[in-house]
């Protein structure tokens, strides 16, 4: 005879006080260690708070918000930057509406960034109420773009085209302008700086490197020896050389081979260097993803009559990219941080602006710590957004995974 089964409930987890007693104070030496840790922790935290709020002098950080954001970009032409960010915000919102969860973290980050910027509690002539309103507008554009999804006419492919057109417009027309034009006077890229340049280099490098990387990765697996050879040599050469060398090479050597009148813009050269560098690493990541796609997938695609182009584009590449998203995001985050290296080419990206501010006033020389801690914070926050977004992306795409 079997015993009657009781209605058992899952054991409840103990309350916090019980947990602390069981885990931190369960015997005399653990109690001592816990108290000691608490003590040290208390001193470290109070010391940090004390430094941040009482000792540190944040003037070199808070007095120059626009310098950090756009460098020496002419102040009377700032509307061009506002216009660019407005386009990006609107497209972000619309992409969020169409692609949903895939884009949401990016869109919300952009919206939050401008929202915070608009409410930044610092004094600055440029951060006038009108300009703050313009910054805040970006938040509404993100949300408004999202609301546009109610209209059926919005299709993914139109938004993709929108991104390409907007990107080209911003980089080739709105920001640089034209020589002699009254409406859009030329603004030399030597005046561009700060976060604007950092994001242009990182964003441009990432978006341009993806298609190149796809071709390199496919080329490396090609059965045509010339194509394969070129891809292998390119990838291995770029991967075998430090980024700083590549940047110097593009900055100095390429110019020597070009006639004076067709010399490339300095920022553009840096962008090419970063793109090719990133493309080589991305291609290797992608190759790993390509190898992970099961042979049965290709056979199934062949069996329904698909040709090699369709198989690669619709079956193999999407699965390969999905498989390597964590590695790709890691690669893009390091590219984002590596944009600081263009400093040595005399381009004032975010870190360059920080250094310039330190050197601008003898008083600021002793305030370097504040500036660099601020820099570290900015890079850390932006990198965190990227890696958080990638985890969301993985989770959203994970639906189809085995």
């Amino acid at each position: 005879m079997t015993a009657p089964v009781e209605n058992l409930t899952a054991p409840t987890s103990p309350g916090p006080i019980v947990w602390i007693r069981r885990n931190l104070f369960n015997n005399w030496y653990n109690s001592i260690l816990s108290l000691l840790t608490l003590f040290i922790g208390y001193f470290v935290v109070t010391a940090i708070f004390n430094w941040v709020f009482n000792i540190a002098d944040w003037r070199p950080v808070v007095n120059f918000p626009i310098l950090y954001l756009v460098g020496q970009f002419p102040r009377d032409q700032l509307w061009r930057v506002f216009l660019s960010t407005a386009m990006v915000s609107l497209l972000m919102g619309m992409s969020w509406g169409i692609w949903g969860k895939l884009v949401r973290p990016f869109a919300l980050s952009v919206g939050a960034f401008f929202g915070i910027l608009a409410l930044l509690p610092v004094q600055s002539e440029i951060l006038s109420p009108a300009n703050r309103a313009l910054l805040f507008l970006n938040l509404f554009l993100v949300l408004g773009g999202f609301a546009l999804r109610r209209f059926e006419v919005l299709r993914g492919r139109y938004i993709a085209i929108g991104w390409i057109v907007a990107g080209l417009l911003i980089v080739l027309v709105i920001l640089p302008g034209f020589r002699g034009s009254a409406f859009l006077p030329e603004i030399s890229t030597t005046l561009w700086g700060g976060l604007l340049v950092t994001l242009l280099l990182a964003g441009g490098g990432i978006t341009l490197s993806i298609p190149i990387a796809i071709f390199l990765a496919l080329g490396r697996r090609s059965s045509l020896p010339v194509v394969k050879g070129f891809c292998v040599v390119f990838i291995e050469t770029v991967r075998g050389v430090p980024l700083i060398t590549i940047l110097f090479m593009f900055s100095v050597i390429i110019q020597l081979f070009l006639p004076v009148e067709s010399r490339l813009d300095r920022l553009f050269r840096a962008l090419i260097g970063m793109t090719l560098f990133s493309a080589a690493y991305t291609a290797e990541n992608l190759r790993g993803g390509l190898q992970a796609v099961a042979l049965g997938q290709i056979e199934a695609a062949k069996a329904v009559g698909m040709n090699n182009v369709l198989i690669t584009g619709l079956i193999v590449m999407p699965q390969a990219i999905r498989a390597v998203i964590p590695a790709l995001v890691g690669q893009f985050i390091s590219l984002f941080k590596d944009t600081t290296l263009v400093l040595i080419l005399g381009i004032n990206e975010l870190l360059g602006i920080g250094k310039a501010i330190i050197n601008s006033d003898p008083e600021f020389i002793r305030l370097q710590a504040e500036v660099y801690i601020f820099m570290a914070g900015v890079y850390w926050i932006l990198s965190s957004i990227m890696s958080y977004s990638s985890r969301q992306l993985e989770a959203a795409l994970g639906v189809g995974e085995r």
Partner: protein
Amino acid sequence: MSDPIIICRDVHKWFDDFHALRGINMEIDRGEVIVIFGPSGSGKSTFIRTINRLEEHQRGQIIVDNIELTHDVRNIAAIRSEIGMVFQSFNLFPHLTVRQNITLAPIWVKKIPKEEADEIAMKLLIRVGCPEQADKFPAQLSGGQQQRVAITRALAMEPKIMLFDEPTSALDPEMIKEVLDVMISLANSGMTMLVITHEMGFARAVADRMFFFDEGLVVESGTPDEIFEHPKEDRTKLFLSQILTH
């Protein structure tokens, strides 16, 4: 007057030094249901894969619906569009929904408008009994459902011939029936089918002829009645006794 849709004459295939197919001859009429069985490594899988050119034969002749399989890419594309294939491991595209799995080839290969392809997909899904799964991903389906979707994916191209490579071998016992039921109704609808399987109940129910493969050769062929009741070759008797006794 026979009207063969598949003609194989002296088909040979080597994997490096291993002689996988050692001269297969077979003529299959329109609407025939063929069951191929035999021990693993006997070349049965390799053989049906040569028919849609997933494997290339190196000697002999394969003619499908009056098109000879050669290196000509157009011939291969033409023949693949007439042949559907179902795999042991389903091979659904994991990054696409069930509906997208089914409509992908009709849209991109046959250039059928998306709305029309969706309609065909839904009709077929109703026929195999899982229309409610249309917007799920393959990983969210049971093995039996996945295999039925895989059959649907092949049918959506409106093939004249269907190849089945051990379609129920990777399934749990309670799911085998639902897949076999779909295959039986397909057989009854007049589809030409080549099925590698050891489901002898299925063979008895719908097969017109059976082929026993061993070591790259057809050892024996005949109607299910001939094979089950009066096998001629000792090798066939031994194999049947092994798979039927447990």
